[in-house]
């Protein structure tokens, strides 16, 4: 059961997303309308803490708990980076949720989240089918 640790971390992650209300459509609207610091504070401070942590891992050459070298893959640029980014942004403002919050919403009891997850799966599947025809 090597996956239990990921399940446990996911539970904590889901609790944090829920308690900080970043899974709320209202909070996402507040963000896109620049009417509160909340979302910017959450995302910004998460990046700062992530950045410092990664630097500490790199500088001290920390290994995983199993003693493996930690590998950080570079992200590759394609035209999809910005085209897909904008498409996701449109969806983010409509649903008020990115993929993580959709799963947390479903757990919290929002029925609409089931519809949105199914639609997101259809979107991912459609992208996969059309991939070769899209600008890259």
């Amino acid at each position: 059961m090597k996956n239990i640790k990921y399940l446990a971390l996911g539970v904590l992650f889901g609790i944090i997303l829920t308690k900080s209300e970043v899974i709320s459509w209202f909070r996402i609207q507040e963000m896109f309308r620049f009417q509160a610091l909340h979302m910017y504070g959450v995302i910004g401070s998460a990046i700062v803490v992530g950045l410092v942590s990664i630097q500490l891992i790199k500088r001290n050459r920390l290994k995983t708990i199993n003693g493996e070298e930690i590998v950080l893959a570079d992200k590759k640029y394609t035209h999809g980076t910005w085209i897909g980014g904008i498409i996701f942004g449109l969806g983010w403002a409509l649903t008020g949720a990115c993929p993580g919050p959709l799963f947390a919403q479903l757990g919290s009891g929002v029925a609409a989240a089931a519809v949105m997850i199914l639609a997101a799966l259809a979107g991912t599947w459609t992208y996969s089918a059309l991939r070769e025809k899209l600008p890259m």
Partner: protein
Amino acid sequence: MTDLLQQSWAWYVAGPLIGLTVPALLLIGNKALGISSSLRHVCAACLPAGIPFLTYDWRKESWNLWFVLGIGIGGFIGYQVMGHPDTIAISAETVRDLKTQMGLTDFSGLLPKELFALENLANWKGWVFMVLGGFLVGFGTRYAGGCTSGHAISGLSNLQWVSLVAVIGFFAGGLLLTWVIYPLLF
């Protein structure tokens, strides 16, 4: 104590905890934080249909599905077990704008029922907000190679310029929808 569990967490508590998820995943298993990939794995597991992009051993990435299952359980614990306020305390300006511009009146819950109640699937609102919105999230994140977790948090934490391009795209799309398309729809 009940209040502490029930009330919402400030950004300076939640943000750093989300940030710590990045090193936690690296240290426990060399995994990069990213959630939208789970959608691809589900497609690959359920309906690969001979599509090359969906033909791979998704079982090797099953940690991601366990993580996402955890997020769902966390949503249940964080909302139903720990409790929650009836109405999210968003800024008065946002409430005013959503009332006057979009005609919303019910601000209870996580999402406005006037747009996201399942009955809305009988009219355009449900299809635009739930179905089209969800579709764009699934299509766009995979095309961009990540979402808020994979690009904004994990990618920017690792100083990936590609992620900065993606995040600028996320906000460009979100702002376009909020400031240009919403006023046309309502």
